[in-house]
């Protein structure tokens, strides 16, 4: 049996005396896929932020020593006129152009493609704000792969994405899991994908 890559025990997160997460305990086994579901405001994104150490919490969050986390935040609202191309964005965290091309390929792009993919531009030269919802999510996934993670946290990876883009992203998730032996934890509202992709489901509710 695979060992745990993450153990959470008695986790509590409070904002201004409002308890968002109360006494949450669970574990995630290595190489598994865990879906986190629950209504809006049940603390799904806050749980991710606690797992990433972005928000203060009490209780225990123990990652395995060799856990390297890649994070795909919830849908970004990028201004259309922000002069930041896909290459510029990936270059913020990685200087090696070969590595940038590598993660784009992993995220289903073809950076060397001479055929224009979007607004007559090749993906590397396309502004973030000009990408479709699905393309932007895949660029964020590419970015999360830059540090060679073995765990991916994806916060609603298909929000703002059309039906075709949605299928592409879930297919990408399962391909990445197979190719890279990733542990995947993702937040979703779509209960129909949970059964198809997740080994384990964590349901958060308002009644903590």
């Amino acid at each position, binding site marked *: 049996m695979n060992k745990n890559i993450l153990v959470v025990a008695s986790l509590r997160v409070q904002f201004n005396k409002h308890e968002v997460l109360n006494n949450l305990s669970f574990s995630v086994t290595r190489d598994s896929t865990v879906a986190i579901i629950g209504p809006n405001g049940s603390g799904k994104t806050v749980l991710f932020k606690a797992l990433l150490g*972005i928000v203060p919490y009490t209780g225990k969050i123990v990652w395995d020593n060799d856990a390297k986390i890649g994070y795909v*935040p919830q849908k970004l609202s990028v201004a259309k006129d*922000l002069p930041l191309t896909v290459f510029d964005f990936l270059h913020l965290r990685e200087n090696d152009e070969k590595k940038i091309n590598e993660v784009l390929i992993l995220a289903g792009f073809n950076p060397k493609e001479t055929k224009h993919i979007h607004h007559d531009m090749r993906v590397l030269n396309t502004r973030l704000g000009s990408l479709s919802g699905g393309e932007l999510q895949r660029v964020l996934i590419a970015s999360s792969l830059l540090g060679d993670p073995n765990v991916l946290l994806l916060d609603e990876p298909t929000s703002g994405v059309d039906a075709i883009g949605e299928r592409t992203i879930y297919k990408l998730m399962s391909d990445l899991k197979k190719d890279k032996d990733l542990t995947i934890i993702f937040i979703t509202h779509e209960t129909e994908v949970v059964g198809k992709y997740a080994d384990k489901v964590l349901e958060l509710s308002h009644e903590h």
Partner: protein
Amino acid sequence: MNTNLLLLILAGSVVGAASGYLGSFMVIKRMSLVGDALSHVALPGIAIALLFGINPMLGALVSLMAAVLGIWYLEEKSEIYPEALVGIFFTASLAIGILITPEPELLEALFGNIENITIFDGVIIGLSGILIFSLTRFISKKLLLGVVSEDLAISSGINISKINLIYLALVGLVVALGVKFLGTLLTGALVIIPAVTAKNIAKSINSFHLYSIFLGILSVVLGILLSVAVNIPSGPAVVLVSIAFFIASFLFRL
């Protein structure tokens, strides 16, 4: 060309370049109004410096740094950006500044007019320019990642709050350098207008920074030459030149 004019143009170019570079981040951080209002805070500092006979640039710097700490604190402590509070605070400092600035220097302090520059001022501006460029370059990737997503930046181990404080302090410094040329009411324009113009024509982040720096230099140099040629104050001349570039870029975009 006389030595004084040459020194003015050199120092002005450094101020224009530094304003353009810092402004390019301010515009995409959606802080343009804060940048503009921040320059008003320099006035009480200049007034106090004039009253005590010390270098007005130093007076401006001290009051700007106090304001920068204030903005940073409000940004850190409040979930919603307290824009109204910033507006009130800056207008109040402008009102106090107008009351205490000695009458003969008031117009110049408000709208800027530089005819003479000392070697000492030139050296201070040059050294500050080097500091601004090297520090901004050092924090640029972290700043930009924070613009795209604060969560992504923090989860990458970036201390966003520290980076923002360094950035605001650099903006305070560039405004202190600019007030001699453009005055406390117009200096913000040199931080904002070249950057907005550059955003209209840039295709990538590097070209955006470069255009912004270049337009900052051009605005100051052409503005100073215009002010000398037709004998008008340097502040309005520089702003009008930068606005002419903005209109041209707007037409280019159409």
